[in-house]
């Protein structure tokens, strides 16, 4: 759904309530059901300035889309953030920067907040856009690095292998590279990456997760423009494909 569509959905939900106590109850329930972020996420640099209550907002990028997590010591504030997150989650930095949301006014939220809380809301919106801007810049840097050959093909190859060594098999405590699951890594002229890989067994129930992890790790590697993964069981994997380190690690040597 687009940002506008999600906004529309929220406006419709709020139109069911005819008084503000009920609307608040709904916002409070949203606040209560929002996943808590752990203490590590409550870093000072994530604290939004300008809110009367303390509000932490964190943001991460996945596949070019932004995802937010937040917390506050005030439940109503938390409920309001959860609405903002619902609107913005899973959109690209550019979409977020371009968006002009108006559901806050349409449902009368802004007018019904105390001025200090309304200011806090403005600060939250500003912080979301700042995150979007920051990630957009980062993405552009990355793209530029790929385009102008800031990283050579060999460097990208090394970066990819380094990234692969960060991904672990769910059953054997060894990374997928040293385990010998990676059959081929090819970096193209345009720094697109092709990976051919396997699983320890064709019936591995976690296959999708592993492929996903590999995809994420490699996409984030410096200089990588895009990733394509081919899963194969031809030839079938066996222990002899493990590196010496891996075998040492597992006490097989």
């Amino acid at each position, binding site marked *: 759904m687009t940002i506008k569509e999600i906004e529309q959905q929220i406006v419709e939900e709020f139109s069911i309530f005819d008084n503000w106590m009920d609307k608040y*109850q709904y916002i409070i329930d949203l606040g209560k059901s929002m996943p808590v972020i752990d203490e590590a996420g409550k870093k000072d640099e994530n604290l939004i300035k300008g809110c*009367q209550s303390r509000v932490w907002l964190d943001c991460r990028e996945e596949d070019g889309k932004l995802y937010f997590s937040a917390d506050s010591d005030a439940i*109503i504030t938390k409920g309001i953030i959860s609405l903002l997150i619902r609107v913005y989650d899973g959109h690209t930095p550019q979409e977020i920067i371009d968006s002009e949301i108006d559901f806050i006014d349409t449902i009368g939220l802004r007018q019904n*907040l105390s001025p200090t809380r309304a200011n806090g809301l403005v600060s939250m919106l500003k912080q979301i856009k700042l995150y979007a801007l920051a990630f957009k810049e980062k993405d552009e840097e990355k793209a530029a690095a790929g385009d102008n050959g800031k990283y050579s093909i060999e460097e990208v190859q090394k970066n990819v292998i380094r990234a692969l060594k960060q991904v672990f098999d769910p059953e054997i405590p060894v990374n997928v590279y040293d385990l010998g699951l990676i059959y081929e890594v090819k970096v193209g002229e345009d720094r697109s990456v092709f990976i051919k890989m396997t699983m320890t067994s064709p019936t591995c129930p976690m296959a999708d997760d592993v492929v996903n992890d590999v995809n994420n790790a490699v996409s984030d590697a410096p200089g990588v423009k895009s990733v394509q993964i081919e899963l194969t069981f031809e030839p079938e994997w066996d222990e002899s494909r493990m590196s010496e380190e891996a075998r040492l690690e597992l006490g097989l040597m």
Partner: protein
Amino acid sequence: MEDNRSKILSEVRGMVPALSGKMNGEPLVYLDNAATTQKPSQVLDFLSDAMVHSNANVHRSMYELSDRSTSLYEVAREKVRSFINAPGRENIIFTSGTTASINLVADTFCRRLKAGDEILIEGDSHHSNIVPWQLAAERNGAVVRVIPTDVMLGKGRSGRVAFEELDSMLSDRVKILALTHISNITGLVNPVGEIISKAHARGIPVLVDGAQGIVHEKVDVQAMDCDFYAFSAHKIYGATGVGILYGKTGMLESLPPYMGGGDMVETVTYQKTTYAQLPLRFEAGTPNFTGAASLSPALKFAEDLREGEVGKVLKDEEGRIISFMTEALSSDPDIEVYGTGENKAPIFTFNIKGVNAGDLAQLLDKMGVAVRSGLMCAEPLINSFGANSALRASFAPYNTLEEAQTFVKCLNRAKNMLL
């Protein structure tokens, strides 16, 4: 008896138009009186009348309008004098508020201090009775020391100032004491008379922040023997932007001029200026003369609420409000009240465990109940209770037991929504 009570209460409330107003479609329950009070018709009518019939700058011109304005201003000064039983007109200085009054004293008195001199303040101070002293102390290396509360000492949770610490703190280095008559957070009445005697025994002058004290206690500055007493007109039914600084004559005369300009001079030449007599010496620039003049009807109203049958009924009502609130709040195990014990004005600051005070205030607003949340300009005191915000319901003599009951009912509703 009950008839009399409700008759008097509704008469008093009838005089204050704002009290029959609405907020968010609900009948207004105004419980933020420690922040500012609602105004009676006498004050409102006076203000508009003065603007129409007596608006001219004070102490300046020869025409009748100006005389009228000056006269209203000076009549109000006399009203303030008699209200706090000051010896004379020269002891009453109009400022822009309690904050301005304290700044005036801190700034001018502390110019005589040297490095290592001490200023004592209380652990229950409002920022207005902390920061001016810090600013003044910074200039000459003086030190601001704090008489702690029992909470700060880890000896209790009442929030009462541990004045027993004072004996060991009073020394020759202490040059002034800045007390709080009644804390705007705890509502506890400090034994200022006693402390002043102790300080005076060592020749140390005392300023009292009376922003809350003036509303809830009968103040006689000569009996109290304070050297300075500061309060705001707006907290006692008068206009905003007006404050009073009472000072003993000798004390005020010992202070250098504060702000320069306007009417605070005797003669001005480019070489040398001589200054006006008290009180004008400290009233530089055009004062808020209309606002100041509103103290005449405002203090008259305050007196009316204290005297005779009305006074008795309202005093009883206040007693009932305090008992009801104390009982209601202390019977909830989730609530901690900041400021407990005897001798308490109807100011209740507290937190509900696991609930954010701002959330409560916001829901109460929707139910027509106006209360304050946050730090209430007393960050160190609120922090000492382990909180970084709190909720405060503060009552004025025109509030009723029914309003206290409505407050508690709405508070519980809000609590249940949030928990």
